[in-house]
């Protein structure tokens, strides 16, 4: 298997403070990998640099053999690397359908079709309904996203990422702030997506139960540095990881 995402010595500093220090990692094709670490470990900053939201201080990001370091977000998305956000970040006043349709239209190069009616984009609408079915929101297509329940908004977040037809998705704490029931729904959604699409996933997550039930490999980030990597069993047994988490919670 070849790596989809290859990060080499990535560093991001804000003034004197370095939130990400010399991190290198690889994610293979058709793989679900987790990136864990305590609050403030630099997970979200890592995502922001990889996806072009922040410029890297040093290091390289290679996606499908192409260097994407410091490209603007929209170009990185077009190459097939998509992401979701920790804090729900969707198009609130647009309907659920429109939330999913926009990335599809952009992907197909229809963004500048000035005079075509949206209802006539039959092929694209069909794809929207397939994605809505996948994320379980078929019956809410015409509801403004702002009126959805929290768990459903999170599902739209994932749906938007999928609609870009990515080769890989970075999920930033997909279960943040969810109830146990919503969390279970999200876990089974991610598993289902992986089985059906074979997209690679990199997931940051707080909830160890989620991490151990989904990921085949785990990277641990601590104070901006890569502390450990390995299978869930190896990570669970790693004394350095236990220490970083102040014992306890890794077993949770």
């Amino acid at each position, binding site marked *: 298997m070849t790596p989809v995402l290859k990060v080499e010595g990535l560093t991001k500093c804000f003034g004197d403070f370095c939130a990400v220090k010399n991190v290198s990692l690889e994610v293979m094709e058709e793989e679900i990998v987790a990136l864990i670490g305590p609050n403030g470990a630099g997970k979200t900053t890592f995502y922001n640099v990889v996806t072009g939201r922040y410029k890297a201080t040093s290091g390289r990001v290679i996606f499908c053999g192409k260097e994407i370091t410091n490209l603007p977000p929209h170009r990185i998305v077009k190459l097939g690397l998509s992401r979701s956000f920790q804090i729900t970040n969707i*198009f609130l006043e647009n309907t659920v359908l429109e939330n999913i349709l926009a990335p599809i239209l952009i992907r197909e190069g229809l963004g500048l079709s000035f005079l075509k009616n949206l209802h006539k*984009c039959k092929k694209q609408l069909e794809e929207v309904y397939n994605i809505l079915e996948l994320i379980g929101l078929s019956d809410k297509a015409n509801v403004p996203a702002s009126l959805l329940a929290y768990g459903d908004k999170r599902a739209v977040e994932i749906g938007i990422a999928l609609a870009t037809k990515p080769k890989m998705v970075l999920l930033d704490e997909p279960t943040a702030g969810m109830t146990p029931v919503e969390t279970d729904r999200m876990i089974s959604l991610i598993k289902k997506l992986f089985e059906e699409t074979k997209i690679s996933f990199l997931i940051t997550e707080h909830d160890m139960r989620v991490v151990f039930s989904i990921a085949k490999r785990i990277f641990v980030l601590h104070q901006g540095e890569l502390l450990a990597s390995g299978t869930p069993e190896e990570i669970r047994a790693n004394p350095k990881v236990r220490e970083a988490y102040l014992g306890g919670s890794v077993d949770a």
Partner: protein
Amino acid sequence: MKRAFYALFLVFLFVFPFFSGMFALLFATEILILSIFALSFNLLFGYTGLLSFGHAAFFGIGGYAAALLAYHTHMGFIPILLLSAAVAFFSACIIGFFCVRRDEIYFAMLTLGFGMMVFTVVHQWRSVTGGSDGLSGFSLPELSLLFTKFSISPPKTFYFLTLFFFLATLLFLKRLLDSPFGLIIRSIRENPERAAFIGVNVNFYRWVSFVIAGTLAGVAGVLFVFYDRMASPSMVHWTMSARPVLMTILGGARSFFGPVLGALVFYILEYIVTQFTENWMIFLGCILVPIVIFFPDGILGSLERWIARRRSGE
């Protein structure tokens, strides 16, 4: 119900000149022109999420281009309109290129800055623009249609010409907003950051929207110059940029017809109030403040919401 209302309004617009007096006809023509101007502004404000304080620059550029062409050449109305729109188009391409690099208050300041620069050029370049006197004394161009030439001088003819452009603007914007492009700019309005992460080149789409809005404002400027029979620096003054802002907020930025209703209310209020006092801006302020505080969706937006609520209640 809504359809019937709009159909009735359309019929009214067509029969209006046959029973109205001269003053009302001119008044209505001006409202229609300013409605086009406000509609073009709202493509940026209501649908792309960019508040421009310099939109009069393109209204003025289109208008001055038309005045200069009418003054120095013998071109007909249609060539003048097309050329002036092209001038507004290229100006919007250049000015927009810089403005869309920032959003929110910074965008507003950039547009204000460019607007003031255009005003200064128009105001100071006396040999070309006539300075503070403006440009007048040109003869109105003729309109060639189907191998016949019409004079656009009779107020009734000019009213129908304006009505044509008003309706064309409405149709064009409606199509535009129901198109993929319309969805993309609305997505940018909702969440520019996320738009970038679905693959949208946000600055580019903002730029396209800016250029369309600027070109339409230029067309409105052409009509205004031939309506007023002069191009004056007040057309490019920042207070002219404030007009579509006020009209749109009055009528409702999220309602398609909001800017039109806003223009209508603005002019009627101005007409009534200036009969009593010179200081009509005080009255406008007294109306604007409660609207912004209590009805942020504007008159039409609030009305639509109220009807929707009543309907779902019954």
